[in-house]
C-alpha cells in the first residue's frame, strides 16, 4: 500500500521571514515524484508562501529571509541552480486564470519562444501537444488565433496549464487552481491533474478539502507557519494523528 516513489524535493529546516514575521517554521518534508501533493490549511497558514518558495517566487519580495534548504533532485534550488532554469522546470498555475492578452497560440508558444525555439512547425507541434495534454485542444483548436481572454474561465485555466507544460517542466505548482471556476471546469482540472501526475510532479494548494481528498496522494496540513501533519491522503482524511488536523478537516475551526 505504501507508495515508494522517488523523492523529487527534499525540504530541510526551512524557515521564512517577512521582516520580523515568521511565515514558515522549520519545515521538513519530502515531496514525491509523479504524485499529487496537496497543501491545506486556513488562510495565513503559510501554505501558499511555501508553494512559492519551490520556484523562488518569494525572492522578489522585499525583506524576505529564507533559511534552510530545498533540494530538487538533490540540487539546492537556492544556491546551485539559476532561477530561470528552475522556473522552466517548475511551472506554476495561479488562482485566477492569467492568460497573456494575446492569442491562445501565442500564449502557449510564449515560453518556447523565450527559450529560443523559432521554427513555426516545431512551435505548432508544441502548441498542439501542450493543449492536448491540458485537455483543452478539442475546445480551442478552431480558434487558436483568438484572444485567450475570450474563452471561458475554465478554458483559460487549461490554456494556462498548457502554457506551463509547453516549456517541458518536471513540476507543476498549482495555487488554488479551481477556486475561481465553476464545478464542471473544476472537475475537468481535477481529472487533468490526475492525468498529468503520470508525467509530472504536482503540488497543489487548495482550500477545498474535498478536492485534496479526491485527487492528492499525500496531504500536508499547515497552521500558523507550522506543518502540523503530513501523510498519505487516505490516512489524513480517515484517521489523522493530530487533533488540530482532525478539527480542521472536520470543519471544527478554520
Amino acid at each position: 500500500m505504501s507508495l515508494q516513489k522517488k523523492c523529487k524535493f527534499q525540504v530541510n529546516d526551512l524557515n521564512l521571514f517577512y521582516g520580523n514575521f515568521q511565515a514558515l517554521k522549520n519545515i521538513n518534508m519530502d515531496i514525491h515524484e509523479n504524485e499529487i501533493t496537496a497543501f491545506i490549511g486556513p488562510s495565513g497558514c503559510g501554505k501558499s508562501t511555501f508553494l512559492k518558495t519551490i520556484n523562488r517566487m518569494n525572492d522578489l519580495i522585499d525583506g524576505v529571509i529564507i533559511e534552510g534548504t530545498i533540494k530538487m533532485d538533490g540540487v539546492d534550488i537556492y544556491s546551485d541552480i539559476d532561477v530561470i532554469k528552475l522556473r522552466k522546470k517548475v511551472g506554476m498555475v495561479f488562482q485566477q486564470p492569467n492568460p497573456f492578452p494575446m492569442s491562445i497560440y501565442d500564449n502557449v508558444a510564449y515560453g518556447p519562444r523565450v527559450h529560443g525555439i523559432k521554427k513555426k512547425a516545431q512551435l505548432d507541434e508544441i502548441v498542439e501537444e501542450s493543449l492536448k495534454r491540458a485537455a483543452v485542444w478539442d475546445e480551442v483548436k478552431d480558434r487558436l488565433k483568438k484572444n485567450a481572454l475570450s474563452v471561458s474561465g475554465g478554458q483559460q485555466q487549461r490554456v494556462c496549464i498548457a502554457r506551463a507544460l509547453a516549456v517541458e517542466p518536471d513540476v507543476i505548482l498549482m495555487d488554488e487552481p479551481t477556486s475561481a471556476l465553476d464545478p464542471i471546469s473544476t472537475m475537468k482540472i481535477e481529472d487533468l491533474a490526475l492525468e498529468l501526475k503520470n508525467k509530472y510532479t504536482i503540488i497543489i494548494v487548495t482550500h477545498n478539502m474535498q478536492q485534496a481528498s479526491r485527487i492528492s496522494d499525500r496531504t500536508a496540513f499547515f497552521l500558523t507557519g507550522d506543518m502540523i501533519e503530513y501523510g498519505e491522503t487516505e490516512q489524513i482524511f480517515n484517521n489523522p494523528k493530530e487533533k488540530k488536523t482532525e478539527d480542521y478537516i472536520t470543519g471544527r475551526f478554520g
Partner: protein
Amino acid sequence: MPARLAYSVELKQIRNDVIKMGSYIEESVEKVMTALKNTNSKLAEEIMKEDDRIDELEREIERQCITIIAKQQPVATDLRKITSVMRMIADIERIADHCSDISEYIIELAKEKEIVTPLNVFDMIVAMKEMVLATIESYIEEDVEKAKWVIDQDDVVDDYFHQIKDELCIAMKHNPSQIKQYVDFLMIIKYVERMADHSTNIAGWIIFIATGKL
C-alpha cells in the same frame, strides 16, 4: 458560536437516537428474560409488537445518516461515526428481531403442560444481557476497554450454547415424548447466541470509531 453548529446538532441527534434504540433493546432483552421465566405469553406478544418501534427508529437513523453524508460531507472521526452507526443499527435491529423470535417460542412453550427448563439457560441469557448492556454503555461512554470486554465475553456465551445443546441432545434421547419443547429451547439458545454475536459486532464498530482500526 461553535463552527458548523447545524452539523453538530445533526450529529448529536443521530447519537441520541442510537442511544434511544439501545435503550429499547435493553428493555426488550429484559422482558424476554421475564417472559421466559414465567412462560408469560402475553408479555411475549407485547415484545413482538414493540419490535415495530425499533424497525422505525432504525429507518429514521439510516435516513439521517444518508442525509448528513449528502449535505455535510463528513470526514475522519465524524465519517467513522456515521458509517459505523449505519452498520451498528442493523445489528441492534437484529437483536430486537431475535427478541421477537424467542417470544414466538415462549408462546409455544406456554402451551406445554409441564416445562423442564435446561440448566444454565438463564445464566446464558444473563451473560448475553450483560454484553448488550455493556455494548450500549461503551457506545455512550466511548469506552474502548468496555467494548473489548464485550468481544471477549462472546466466548462465555458460546460455551453456554454448546453445553446446553449437548444437554438437550441427551434429554431428547432419554425423553423423546418431550422433544418438541427441547427443540423450542434449542432454537431459543441459538437466538441468544446470535444476539451475543450481534453485540460483538457492535462492539467492534465502537472500537473502530475510536481507533480507526477495523
